[in-house]
């Protein structure tokens, strides 16, 4: 639902606008205020994910005067549905959900974060337990694999492309069991707790967990890694007022020049924000193609 106040420019529309505003008010039961609902995907432990974004939201609120409300999603794919159902005005899109949004939703991309190592991209890893003895795709047959979500690049699309590239046409039946952990850290955790033999996760989460838990580097091995795809950037519904878009963009891009913004970036785990556009998702489209996925027809919901 739109909660952005529109300024009245033409006296002729005044009557209709009033009527419209009244209707909106009666049906929504929500105060007519400037609030932006931003969706978050469960990239990692949902509680930690929210903790990570909270300071950023507060910072944007302070700089732009727009109330920011984050809403956490239990599934990557739900973001498309939620966006369609007008529950959200914007989201920090995963690379694949971003690609879906480019194709299916009118989303305008604003900016994406740059990792502490300087890259504004990430890649997907296929991981195995060292003690599993798995060296390649062939070794994986009959093993248990933990994907992240059907709507993730690193956690599904890339492994699918990898399997296709290595002669595994359909994972169904090839593995003893496959399941979706919903988050990258859960996938790695599943490996560490021997719930699964093969795991898929994005490199940023892998590195983060490696710092917290020494077992990650000690017990796990990277079998494959995907090409670079854009990091989780902010995309907004393109019907939102341009002034808000501009404000958001300016705030994010200038964050690293502001001492306060620098602190927030540190908590967020990034160096700075850079501009991003739909074109940046080319690599994702390519990867999807390799995986044999038709994005427009793709059923992105986990089964």
């Amino acid at each position: 639902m739109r909660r952005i106040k529109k300024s009245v420019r033409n006296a002729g529309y005044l009557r209709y606008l009033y009527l419209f505003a009244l209707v909106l008010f009666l049906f929504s039961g929500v105060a007519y205020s400037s609030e932006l609902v931003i969706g978050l995907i469960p990239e990692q432990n949902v509680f930690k994910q929210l903790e990570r974004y909270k300071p950023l939201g507060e910072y944007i609120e302070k700089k732009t005067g727009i109330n920011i409300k984050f809403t956490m999603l239990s599934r990557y794919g739900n973001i498309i549905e939620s966006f369609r159902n007008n529950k959200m005005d914007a989201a920090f899109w995963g690379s694949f959900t971003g690609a879906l949004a480019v194709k299916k939703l009118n989303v305008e991309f604003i900016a994406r974060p740059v990792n502490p190592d300087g890259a504004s991209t990430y890649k997907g890893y296929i991981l195995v337990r060292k003690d599993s003895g798995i060296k390649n795709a062939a070794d994986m047959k009959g093993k248990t694999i933990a994907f992240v979500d059907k709507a993730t690049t690193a956690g599904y699309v890339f492994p699918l492309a990898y399997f296709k590239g290595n002669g595994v046409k359909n994972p169904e039946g090839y593995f003893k069991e496959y399941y979706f952990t919903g988050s990258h850290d859960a996938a790695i955790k599943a490996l560490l707790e021997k719930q699964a033999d093969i795991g898929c996760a994005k490199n940023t989460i892998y590195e983060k967990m490696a710092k917290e838990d020494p077992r990650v580097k000690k017990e796990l091995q990277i079998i494959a890694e995907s090409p670079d795809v854009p990091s989780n950037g902010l995309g907004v519904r393109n019907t939102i007022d341009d002034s808000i878009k501009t404000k958001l963009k300016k705030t994010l891009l200038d964050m690293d020049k502001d001492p306060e913004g620098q602190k927030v970036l540190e908590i967020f785990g990034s160096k700075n924000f850079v501009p991003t556009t739909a074109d940046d998702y080319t690599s994702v489209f390519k990867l999807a193609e390799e995986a044999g996925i038709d994005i427009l027809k793709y059923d992105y919901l986990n089964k």
Partner: protein
Amino acid sequence: MKKKIITSLFILFTCFSVGAVLSIWYIHDSTERLSRVIELHQVENIRRSLVLSLQTVQADLYSVKTGFARELDSIIGNVRILDKASENCTTCHHSPELTKNLQEMQKLVHQYQDYISYYITGSANENRLEKLKLQAVEQGNNLLGITQNMSHRSSRHLETLSKNAMDNVNKVKTIMFITLLGTLLIAIFVAVKLINFVTYPISNLLEATRKISSGDFGFTTSYRDSTEFGELAEHFNIMSITVKEEYEKTQKEIQRSMLAEEALSESKKRYELAARGANDGLWDWNIATNKTYFSPRWKSMLGFEEDEVKDAPEEWFNRVHPDDRKRVESEIAGSLETPTAHFICEYRMLHKDGTYRWMLSRGLAVKNESGLVARMAGSQTEITERKIAEEQLIHDAFHDTLTGLPNRVLFMDRLKHADRRAARHKDYIFSVLFVDLDRFKVVNDSLGHAIGDELLVAVSQRLEECLRPGETVARLGGDEFAILLEDIKSNNDMEHIINRIQNKLEMPFNLSGNEVFTSASIGISLSVAGYVNPEHMLRDADIAMYHAKLNGRARYEIFDERMHAHVVARLQLETDLRHAIENHQFHLNYQPIMLMDTGKIKGFEALVRWNHPNRGLIMPAEFISIAEDTGIILALGKWVLEEACKQLSIWQKQVACDISMGVNLSIKQFTPHLVSTVKDAILHAGIKPESLILEITESMIMENAESASKLLAELKLLNVKLHIDDFGTGYSSLSYLHQFPLDALKIDRSFIAKIGIDSDEKLEIVKAIAALANNLNLDVIAEGVETVEQLAHLRHLNCKNMQGYLFSRPLDVESAGKFLRQSLNGDGESARKQKEG
């Protein structure tokens, strides 16, 4: 004393301190315990909330994958509450062991979160999902168990702590009570002791202090002891005596200064009053700063307001009249040089209205400590009016008030000037004209003094018109004027001026409607005569004028030595006359008066003669006027009267007949005193009053008819006879004549002498007089009958009494006596013969 107080207070303090320290120690302990209890209670609450949160999240966990699931955001909220609760627990104060447990617990909470998250986000077959769920539930139950256990343990601990704390509180109560009670008892004891120690001496000293404060200085207390109070009492006594002495001293001092102040204020007031009374302006010149204070009066004297005059000394000096300025400045300079000398100066100052005012300034310069003149101050008085009055006085002193001409003093001054100039320049000649109006007295008498004054003013104007500039005409007094003619080149010069004066004065004057004629007699003295004293020049001019008068008036005479000699002679005569009576130089001659009816003698007229030791016999005409001028006439007149009466008495006794005696009176004798003189003479001689004839002149009675009338009446009361002498020569008012108690008229000899010589005119006059006398019922006596012809005429006119050479000259006493006897015994004829013989 001090020790006692200190010791008492110290004991008190110690008791209290011990109690306080104990109390504080226990209170501190109790506080710590209580705060711990409170803290634990809080922790208990937190733990309770942790248990609640855990239970909530567990419930969420069971419902998350069901249709009753909350929204993920809400679950996240609950988890966050749980997270916060566990965090709070770890931040509380706990024993290290407990802290470790709590940290462990928090770790478990995080793991629990992970498990929940995995379960929530996971998508797999039911077994796997159930596994994930169980993992999380197990973790949750585990946490719940730990938490409840901890809660149970801490509850017990809390109970113990609370009990201990309350015990401590009770102990504090007891200690406090004991301390307070002990302190109170000791304090009461100390207070009673101290009061006893202090009150007695204090009240003693207090009483003494009251005495002093009520004015009883010098009061001493008898209190003695060895403590500080004893010392205090001792010092108090000394102080009291000192106060008394000082007070008396101060009192005297105050009195003296009050007197001095009074005197000063009195002197100030007096000065102020004096300055105000004198209406003086004040000035005060500070030499160092060159600023001058001018008082408001000083400014107002010059017509200025207070703020119109600045404080520069130029405000003063620039207003001084240019002619006076140098003098003022030099006076001030002199005063500054010798500061003891007063500065006194009179000068003119420019008033605001543009006129100059006379000021008198007085001042005195004052030296400072270093001996330099520091200031000069003084007063300024306006003396314009005084100056004008002075000038007026000076003018008046030198001028005649009536005519405004210079007076005698100024004239003499000018004369002296001229004289000095003449001494320097040999050919410088000047002269003095003494001008006397002719007949001025007549004008005065006939037209009154006002017209007389007018005439004098008019004459003075005409005289001024006749003179050249620089020449002086002065009024000396009365109708006398003096003129100083200077630098005379020739006699013509002078004569020219004199003629002009005389011509001018002879022109008629119109005075208040009266046409008045006058002329002047002028006497002249010339500087060429070589005067030593200028006064003599005026004197000689006066003499010359006198001669001009003698020589017929309306003319001038130049003084010569003969005139001087004449005057000197006259003066000599005057001197001799003063001694003539006492030296018996006077004697009387008697001229018989004949009665025509009988041809016999009727009486005598007494005539005075002066037998001058050097000059021989002098006739009255020569000395009577001098006697009148000098006042000798009164003594002389009295002597004549007495002598005549005495002689008459002798003769009347000899011949036993009532012959009469005529005595001439001078105008000067004609005073009320005359009556007593005449009375005395009559009484003294023992004669009949009616045989005494007093001969008076017309002018004597006409000059003041009223008083004369009164005097004549009084004389008449004595029964004496009154005759008018020289009738016809003077001025007579016939209308008055009949009012006087007269007895006879004596026709003047000038009328008789002309009978038969000139014409009949005189005879007619005599005839008229005789007729007048006849009408007034008066006798007529003809004087100066010398010829038979005259006798015949007079007989014809019915004139009964005669006197003259025809009958007898004035005779000495013996001859007169012989003539008397012969006349009475024989006839008139024989008497005439004797005379001729």
